[in-house]
């Protein structure tokens, strides 16, 4: 891939000052490059430094050593602060704590107002942003009366009204129900596909990461795996060792393989998985009891819940 760089992190050092224990080192030499137009998912267990990294991307936190360059701008250059933040928008976990206004459209207008955009153009940007996230009909509503997924889409609209080139979403679906998660993910995917906005999605959900073009897995402030979802999830052992589970479909395939059934190791969507299972069954005797035991083995309630929305499609 030889696309233009969106974000370049070089040998990043960072630590939080703490009152009692002195310093808490989060990054000790982290480097990563994200290209313009990419859809990157970042995985990692709690406290491994995902949010800290995200906040480096728009100069909310500054490197203690090394450098972060955003569209050619060094985040340590104070005179570029607003320009950097306008280029890299950020959506946070709790939708309630990032909405500033009592009216949806006023909230979406907040960022362009801060940037000193002319009123007529703000109006245009707000309408367009709300249409993009499918919330135009709610423009005069009060945010607190909306569902979690809707609020999060308002937050996304509030960011895209700045016309950013990149959006960083820090666990935007962590507080949402399956319906809300799907709304947000569809919106993010659409922004990446249609508006060619670079998307960096921090998430705990493997099925969300599977929809990205690239997955970065982190542990203790280090990148331990980086590649396409298939490449990363194939390393199930490594991921499990750092407390990350692979997607349910992937896990099923790996278990089947461990039990001597010949299925591909890189199926990510439920459809792909179902297809692979059907092929495998056809190869085996359809009345073979072994097939059923493996199936029953996997029926824990959580995986059922996870598969339901996709089944319904």
């Amino acid at each position, binding site marked *: 891939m030889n696309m233009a760089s969106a974000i370049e992190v070089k040998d990043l050092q960072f630590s939080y000052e703490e009152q009692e224990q002195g310093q808490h080192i989060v990054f000790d030499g982290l480097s990563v490059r994200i290209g313009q137009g990419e859809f990157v998912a970042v995985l990692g267990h709690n406290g491994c430094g995902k949010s800290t990294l995200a*906040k480096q991307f*728009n100069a*909310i936190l500054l490197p203690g050593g090394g450098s972060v360059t955003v569209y050619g701008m060094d985040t340590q250059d104070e005179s570029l*602060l*607003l320009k950097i*933040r*306008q280029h890299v*928008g*950020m959506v*946070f976990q*709790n939708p*309630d*704590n*990032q*909405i*500033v*206004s*009592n*009216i949806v*459209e*006023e909230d979406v*207008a*907040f*960022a*362009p*107002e*801060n*940037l*000193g*955009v*002319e*009123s007529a153009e*703000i*109006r245009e940007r*707000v309408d367009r942003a709300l249409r993009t996230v499918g919330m135009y009909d709610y423009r*005069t509503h*009060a945010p*607190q009366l909306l569902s979690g997924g809707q609020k999060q889409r308002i937050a996304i609209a*509030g*960011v895209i009204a*700045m016309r950013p080139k990149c959006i960083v979403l820090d666990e935007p679906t962590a507080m949402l129900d399956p319906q809300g998660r799907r709304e947000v993910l569809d919106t993010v995917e659409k922004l990446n596909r249609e508006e060619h906005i670079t998307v960096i999605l921090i998430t705990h959900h493997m099925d969300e990461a599977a929809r990205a073009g690239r997955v970065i897995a982190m542990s203790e402030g280090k990148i331990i795996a980086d590649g396409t979802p298939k490449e990363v999830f194939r390393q199930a052992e490594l991921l499990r060792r750092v407390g990350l589970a692979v997607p349910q479909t992937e896990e099923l395939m790996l278990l089947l393989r461990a039990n001597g059934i010949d299925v591909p190791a890189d199926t990510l969507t439920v459809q792909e998985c179902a297809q692979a299972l059907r092929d495998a069954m056809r190869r085996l005797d359809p009345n073979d009891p072994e097939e059923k035991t493996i199936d029953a083995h996997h029926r824990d309630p959580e995986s059922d819940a996870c598969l339901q929305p996709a089944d319904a499609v």
Partner: protein
Amino acid sequence: MLKDVTLGQFFPGNTPIHRLDPRTKLLFVVAYITALFLAKWFVSYGVVLAFLLTVIALSRISPKVIARSVKPLLFIILLTAFLNLFYTPGEPILQVWIFRVSKEGIVSAVLMMLRITMLVVGTFMLTYTTSPIALTDGLESLLSPLKRLHFPVHELSMMMCIALRFIPTLIEETDKIMAAQKARGADFESGNLIRRAKALIPILVPLFITAFRRADELATAMEARCYHGGDGRTKMNVLRFHRCDGAAAVVGMALLTAVIVLRRFGL
């Protein structure tokens, strides 16, 4: 229980009252309150009341909502009326034990009740028909001359705006915490005043902790959206006076003049 609090609530609509410029409405409320305090006798009160009822009718705010907003203040209204009833000197017409009721007492009690109710309802009409954003914008604009004296006008209006935004959120949270504490056997309804106040501590502590966390996250989110104070900031909706604002100004002046004239005649 806290759901009844309607303070600062806005009911969107598209009536002439809703469409008025917030600055007009703010000045209007000032004129209205002045008129209310200058009103001396039932005739003046009648004029102000007629005016208030017209505004309510025009704004299409349901009387139920208005009744609900007065309810929490009923105690204060009744107490004031009670004090006026018994402590206004005058010719007694009724005596029960040590309580003496005079004709003047009855009159001043009724007028006092009217005054407080109309004061409350009038100011509520402002918040009911004006979005908090418009209200803070209006205040910011009216106070902007003070900027020259280094008075933090923008910061103040931003703070108000955020406070209004978070009132419903914090009320909801308080309800949730109360429910959680009740589920663990907390008792908020019995005991004397000190005991009840003490029972509130387990509600206030988690409420404050989450409020601080919210504030911290909100500040980060605002910075991420390029907030950097009031300098160079523009507005999507620029405040502009229209013809109806002129009309409202005339009505406001007329109201004030009428009450002042009636006052001279002791009405």
